[in-house]
Each structure stands twice: as C-alpha cells, then as structure tokens.
C-alpha cells in the first residue's frame, strides 16, 4: 500500500499557549470592597452608538445608576433573545445594586464598561482598550472587577481586559460560559456556571440564579489562592433556541 507523500511540510496554524500569570490578591472583606462589572458581551446604553459586529475595540461607559431598561445588546455572535428579555443575563446590574443595598459588597464603581469582544483585535485590546478601562477603574478605587465574555472570541477579549485590570492592582474574576477559552487565554480566576453563551450571568428573569452566581463568584475572589484557578458552580440553565 503506497501513499504519495512529501517531506518538508509545516503546520500552518499556531496553537496557543497560556500567557504568564498575573495576580493581585484580595486584601479586604467583600463588604468593604468596591466592585466594578465589565462585559465583552456587547452591552451598551440605548442612546449610545451600537458596536460594529464585525469587530470593534471601542468601549461604552455604563453608569452604575442607570436603569437596566436603558441598556441593550449589539452582538452578532450568539442568539440575543435572552438579553433582549433581561439584560441582567449578561450584565447583572440590578443584582449588583441589590447586593450593595443588602451590604454583601461595599459599593459599586460609578462607571462600568461594556465592549463587544467578538472577533476583537487582540493587539488593540491589549495595548489600548484594556489599559484604558483598567486605569479608569483603578482611579475609581475599585477592588474587584467581575466580567462576562459572550461568544468565544469575546472570552478572549474579556480576558485581555481582565488581565490588564489584574495587572493594575485589582482582583478580577470572569464568569465564563466557555471556561476552556478563559483558561487558555490566561484568566486569573474563573467561575463556571453551566450557562450558554448569550446568558453568561444566568437565566434571564431568574433573580435567584443570577444572585447566586454573582455571590458565589465574588466569594471565589476571596477563596482562590492561585492564578488560573477555576471553580464550577452548581447552577444550570439551558437555552432551548
């Protein structure tokens, strides 16, 4: 049996290795911490310019006092129907305010950020978007940054920004629908509920689940001790499209 072959072929696609660790330990109890939430899942204010779904490294300011009815999604990488029902499924701002009001966390950053990480230009996110968001959050005295991705490349972009925040001296965690991407891209802490992309922060209009995911995730920032740690959360939501 003969196979026509050649020598000298080279594989054409680089397979990534995880970047070096970046780590900021948390030094305060949660009830004293200032929290910021950022998302690569394409959330922005309705009055703002929508993202370019073919790739966009710009970002939008989201005041933590804004009613969630004034937020929307522009993202082409997944079924939007869950976020259309309840924006907290990607950006759980109502839940964060409740946690602040009940004293579970200290306070919220005045300005949080939404960007559309799908197909994101890695260099731009690394050199511009990540450092800019990190600087603003640091200046607001943020202790913990929680983030969600969205689609696959969103997780990549989210982790790039997350790592910039961690490097700037804040403890960060990603709520990942796609934990392998978060891990491979070098996320410092990974919280992994069983959720589909498009409702990364939990089932729409399920306040209990969204709250539980957020609380467990924040507790992980307290308990995790090493770069790259991942914990699976016992919440499951399947989106039957």
């Amino acid at each position, binding site marked *: *049996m*003969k*196979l*026509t*072959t*050649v*020598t*000298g*072929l*080279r*594989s*054409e*696609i*680089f*397979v*990534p*290795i995880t*970047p070096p660790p970046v780590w900021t330990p948390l030094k305060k109890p949660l009830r004293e911490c200032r929290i910021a939430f950022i998302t690569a899942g394409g959330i922005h204010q309705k009055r703002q310019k929508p993202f370019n*779904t*073919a*790739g966009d490294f710009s970002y939008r300011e989201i005041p933590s006092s804004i009613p969630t009815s004034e937020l929307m999604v522009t993202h*082409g*990488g*997944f*079924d*939007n*129907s869950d976020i*259309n029902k309840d924006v907290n499924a990607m950006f759980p701002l109502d839940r964060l305010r409740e946690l602040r009001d009940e004293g579970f966390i200290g306070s919220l950053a005045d300005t949080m950020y939404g960007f559309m990480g*799908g*197909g994101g*230009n*890695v260099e731009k996110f690394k050199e511009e978007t990540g450092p800019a968001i990190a600087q603003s959050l640091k200046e607001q005295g943020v202790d913990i940054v929680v983030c969600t991705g969205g*689609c*696959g*490349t*969103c*997780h*990549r972009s989210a982790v790039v920004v997350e790592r910039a925040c961690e490097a700037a001296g804040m403890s960060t965690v990603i709520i990942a*629908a*796609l*934990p*392998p*991407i978060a891990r*491979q*891209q070098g996320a410092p802490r990974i919280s*992994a509920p*069983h*959720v*589909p*992309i*498009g409702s990364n922060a939990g089932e729409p209009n399920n306040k209990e689940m969204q709250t539980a995911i957020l609380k467990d995730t924040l507790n992980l920032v307290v308990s995790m001790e090493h770069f790259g740690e991942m914990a699976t959360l016992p919440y499951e939501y*399947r*989106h039957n*499209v």
Partner: protein
Amino acid sequence: MSMSKEKAAAHANEPAVLCCQRPKGTVISEADLEDPTIFVDLEDSGLLTIPEGSLTVGEVLGRKLAADTDALTAVQAAMLESGAPAADLGTAAAGPKSGIASAGAKREDVVIRSLTHKYYAVDDVSIGDSTSFASGRLTIDGSLAKKALASSLLVKKVEMDVIRPDGDRHIAINTIMDVMPVAVKRTGRMGEGETAVLDRVVFCLTGVDENGVQIHEFGSCDGYLDERVAFGRPGAPDSGDIIVRVNVVIAANTGMERRGPLAAHTACDVIVDAVRSVLKASGEAPSYTRGYRDVRRHGLPRVAIVKEIMGQGAMHDNILLPNEPAGVMGGQKNVDLGNVPVMLSANEVRDGGIHALTCIGPATKETTRHYFREPLVHALAEDDELDLVGVVFIGSPQVNDEKMYVSERLGAWIEALDLDGAIVTTEGFGNNHIDFAGNIAAIGSRGVPVVGVTYAGYQGQLVVGNEYMDAMVEINKDAKGFENEVLSCSSICPEDAERARLMLKAKMAGIPVAPAERRWSQGVIDANQKLAAGLTAGR
C-alpha cells in the same frame, strides 16, 4: 525552560538559544536550550534578540561552549569550540517521497452506490406568468413570491429578480444568507440514482428584518454584489452564473432568533421547489453528465472527514438530508438532533444532503452550494490511495458541557470505525474552535493521525489548543487575516483540500510535519502549496 529530546528534534531547524547561564566546556544538550515556541514572547518583551547567522538547534547539539555564556543568548559559531560533531537529528531536505503506511489487507474495490448528475445549461432566466424550462430558457412564475410569503407568519415580504452575468453586477444587495443550486432527484434516494441539476444558475437568498436590520451575525456582506462576493469559490456564484435573487423581509427583531432565518430559508425553498418540479419533468437532453461513486476500497487506509457545523440557533443551524437536494423541506435540523455526530456518505454530501443556515460571517461560512461542491470531500472520495469511509457532520453546541459530550461521542465513533486517519474542518471561528480542538483531541488521543482545517488568520487565531493540533491547514484568503465580509472568501478551496490531504498522508506515513510558526504566515502556506503542486505535477 529547557527542552525534551523530542521537542529538540521537532525544532532542529529553529535558532539555538541557551535557556540558562552555562560555563565554558558545557557540551550542549537539549536541556540547555530554550523552547523556540516562546521566542516571540521573549523578543516582544525585549529579553531576547536573535542575530542573523545564529546557529540552529540541530547545529549546536553535542558541541562544546568555548566560554562562559549568559542565559537567553542565541548561539553563534564563534561561541563554540571547533571539532565536535553535531548530533544527527535527521533534518532531511524537502522533496517528494513515497511512504508505506502499513502492510495492508487484500486490495478490493466495492462500489456501494453510484450517482449521476445530469446538468442542464441555462442561457436565460426570466420572471413570467408560469414556471417552465425549455431550450435553456428558465421562466419562473412571479406569483411564487406570494406563495412563499404565505409559508410563514414571520415572513413579511418576498421579492425576486434576476441578475445576469453580462449585465451590471454593481448593484446593491442585502446580506447573502445562502447560495443554492437547483437540483432534483429523478430516481433513487439522496446519493444514488439520477439527479437533474441546473447549470450556470444559482439562487441567492438575501434578507433584512422589518426594521431594515440585515439578517447576519458576525459581519454582513450587504453592499454591492460585485464587491461583496468571492466569485468562483465553491460556495459562491461563479462569475458566469445567472443569479436568481430572492430577498426576504422577516418580522422585526427575529433576525437573531432561530425562527427568523429559518422562515426566510423556508420561503425561498417554496420558489426553488417549483423550479425543481419543472426540471424533474423536463424532457430536454442534458448538456453534460457527471458520475460519482461511493467506493469501499478494502485494504487501503480507512479515513473519515469530520465537518463541524454550527448548532447554536439563530443562523447557527444546518438541515441534514432534506427531501430534495439542497432543499429545506423534510430535512433534520442539527440543533434538534442535539449536535451529535451524523454520518453521511460522500455521495450524499455531493448530492445536496446539507442545506446550510449558518452565517457566522460571510467569508468563513459554508453555504449550501459549498457542501454541494465540497472540494475536500471530492478530493478524498476520488483518491485511489485512501478508503474514505464517510463524512461525519457534528454540531457545535451552545453549552460547554454539551461541547465535550458531542466531541466524546465523535471519539467513540472514530474508535468503532477503526480509522487510520481523519481530517477535521470547521467554519467560522471563536467558540466553535473549542469544539474543533475537542474533536481533534477526541481523534488524536485515540492514536489516529488527524489534520485540522480552519480559518484562523489574524482575527480568528485559535483561542484554545492541545498537543494533537500539530498538523493544521489555514484557509484564510484575506490579505490581513480578517473576516473581510466577502462571501465565501476564506472557505475551503481545492488548493486547501490538496494541502490537507497531503498533510494527512504525511502524518499517516510517519513523516514529520514541522511545528507552526508563532504567527500566521502566508509564506508557510505558500511553501506547503508548492510542495502539493509539485506532487500533482509529478503524477
């Protein structure tokens, strides 16, 4: 970090860089050398510079350092004592070679099924009062648009027109959701018997919602037809094709929900189906015919193609085995099947067994026509050195746990099929690369040589990876490596299929495939293509 013997052998032609400080008289071994895969990171952070004329790993192994030398120094000839021979790492020069895969069983070819495609050339298409096909003239009943409108409450408007190749192609289009051939079974089931196919005409489905939002996900090819289509790609119209454009308007805000795009495809199929009916009954003589056979080539290496399809709803779905070639009606939806692997024969694929709804960006999506003309399926089915056992279609689910589940089911199939090799392809990029990596691992971890084929380029660079992804074919065709929103631009072409086939054969024959460079490089692709072209010419 030092290297293992295997790693040093794999990187024999890369620059040799000391990983740590080493004293004079050290006989250099792989343990003294830095892993070349991290050179780019080291160079980026200013820790390493590799001057011209640095020696390679193969050239320094076994040689003695002439002086104390610092860490992260690229080794130069002057830094070594003369005399000691370099270790033999078998750095053979590139060139054609015939390898023996394994001692085979008895050779015997068995034809499982035969398929004939009868092609009917179409010289002109017009919209008229009834649907007919005679003497190369296709007339489509204009009132079919109304019938299509009635197919779903979500469909709000259906328009149809004809775009001719000799006329103005610089016309505004909404995003192209699909390109479809017109084909109908005359005898037999999908993949066997006789199929009539219209030549030089395709249907293009375009669409928006009631708010004017394009029905697309990751990028859109709305704009001007002549600028937004890579004419001639397997999945695109050819430059000489007449295009029947069916433009559908669906209910507001349903473009990104599963039901919306499906309604648009269903409406379009109502029109195509009416054309199929007249083609089926036509007594015209065909312009030419093509024969396809599913052949079991006993005694040859058993290989499979695994084609990953999207399965996350919205436009992320595919319809398997519709009633008529490339149609919608009667088919099984991949999402409803749970994304599990489903096996089709090469003939079933080539006979229109897949209707594509996927639209992850126009350049990297595989349209219905792409499956109808799939170059990799064709290349392997016709290869008389291989026994192509079939084409596995596997979905990319939305939930990570389900991704692992379907990849593992694929692994179980591969094991049961007792394969000698497999090629895994995917379309689009991002989260489906998790499945891509998982599927390749499911095959590679079972000791089966595997090659991966995907668009990665710059924008779609892999987000996950594993040790089995060591023979990869890049299908990007954009100069900057982006999803450039040009229909079918970066999809699998015959040249890509050639490189994938060659890489698989090399792996099966035990011939090393060198590791990828750290960044996407067109030069690597061109060099592989040259090797493939040399072989084809030499046959």
